């Protein structure tokens, strides 16, 4: 029987960690972009568009990420589209994080007092200019901490994609356990790695929150 050293286990987990990080970053960036688009469309004049955005956000926040993942992975397959696991994982996480980020940012925008909207409107700015130059710069200050905080949620949520066979940290943990029969060691390490990834981010988020509350401008 072949023996596995702790280093063998750790090395393979760290290799799989690349995919957790890549998937997290991709989902965060694409989800953030889509979320920003949703934020702008949520303010649109068209009632129908606003309704649709609401429905989108409610649906993606009101159903488990796992179901969304299954729907993308198996649902598209029903239509004859062969979706690789990495693509299904990225799509589902992007849609999911967009719904949360859009809502987080909507709250930040809503917290900007109406006087800022009125004053900029009175200077003949368009809606886009108001958002771009007046509202978002002020909302950003408030948004940094919860946005980084949600980044932590995304990292942890990538674990779900192991179910459809995407080999990231958790899936690698399962595979290695099946070979080594040392679940406690392996998943202990997996947990530790997630923690080392998320904890500094959480701390950073708390730091930003304090900093943005103290310094009121710039």
């Amino acid at each position: 029987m072949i023996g596995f050293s702790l280093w063998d286990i750790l090395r393979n987990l760290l290799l799989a960690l690349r995919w957790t990080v890549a998937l997290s970053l991709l989902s965060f960036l694409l989800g953030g972009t889509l979320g920003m688009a949703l934020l702008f469309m949520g303010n649109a004049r068209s009632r129908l568009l606003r309704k649709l955005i609401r429905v989108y956000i409610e649906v993606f926040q009101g159903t488990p990420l796992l179901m969304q993942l299954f729907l993308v992975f198996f649902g598209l397959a029903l239509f004859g589209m062969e979706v690789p696991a990495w693509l299904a994982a990225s799509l589902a996480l992007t849609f999911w994080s967009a719904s949360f980020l859009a809502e987080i940012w909507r709250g930040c925008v809503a917290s900007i007092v109406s006087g800022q909207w009125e004053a900029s409107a009175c200077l003949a700015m368009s809606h886009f200019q108001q958002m771009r130059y007046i509202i978002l710069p002020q909302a950003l200050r408030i948004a940094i901490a919860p946005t980084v905080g949600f980044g932590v949620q995304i990292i942890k949520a990538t674990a779900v994609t192991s179910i459809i066979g995407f080999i990231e940290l958790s899936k690698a943990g399962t595979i290695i356990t099946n070979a080594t029969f040392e679940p406690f060691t392996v998943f202990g390490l997996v947990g530790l790695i997630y923690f080392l990834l998320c904890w500094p981010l959480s701390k950073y988020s708390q730091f930003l929150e304090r900093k943005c509350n103290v310094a009121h401008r710039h």
Partner: protein
Amino acid sequence: MSLIAIENVKKSYGSNLVLNGINLEIDAGEVIAIIGKSGSGKSTLLRCINGLETIDEGIISVGDVLLGRSERELRALRLRVGMIFQQFNLFSHLSVGQNVMIAPVIVKGVKQQTVRELAQQNLARVGLAEKFDSYPDQLSGGQQQRVAIARALSMQPQALLCDEITSALDPELVNEVLSVVRKLATEGMTLVMVTHEMRFAREVCDRVVFMHQGKVHEIGAPEEFFTNPKSPELQQFLGMACV
């Protein structure tokens, strides 16, 4: 022809009729004070003139621009009328200079250098030339309000709407703002101000409008208006206000 024309304007919030058929013509260079009890519709009327509130009926025009509902129509109108608020509403993330410069740059596309000179001129006009690089939260209320005036002036409007611009100020800061407004009035700026400063209205304004229950109840030149009010409502209001 009058600069601002308001014809039979009506507006209600639900079943509450706030403006009940307002007619008012304001000439270029005129200084108008609108007074009345709270809830009489004076602020609402002011906010209707530049489309911050929508009207249910009637017509409002400023110069050759008719108040419309689309963003394009509203922006065309707002290029002609500036507004100053009770709460100043300065952009807190921008310096004083940037507050004054931002709209001409992004809305009118004026060159940065030209706008900077204009901003410095306008800040000098309100006596705050040296505050160009300060931030709003470093200024007193009176200074913030004067920056707000400079910001509105930087768009070179034909008229300014002032919505109780001294009501949020400590008493000792009221005069520095009013003296700026007085200067604008003598320079020929068209001003429509909702105010509680009766003495100021009397000294500076060409006409005073008394609003009552959503209507222009009484209107006239200040001397006649204050010394010889005709309607019992105005008599009562002025009595309450102790003029």
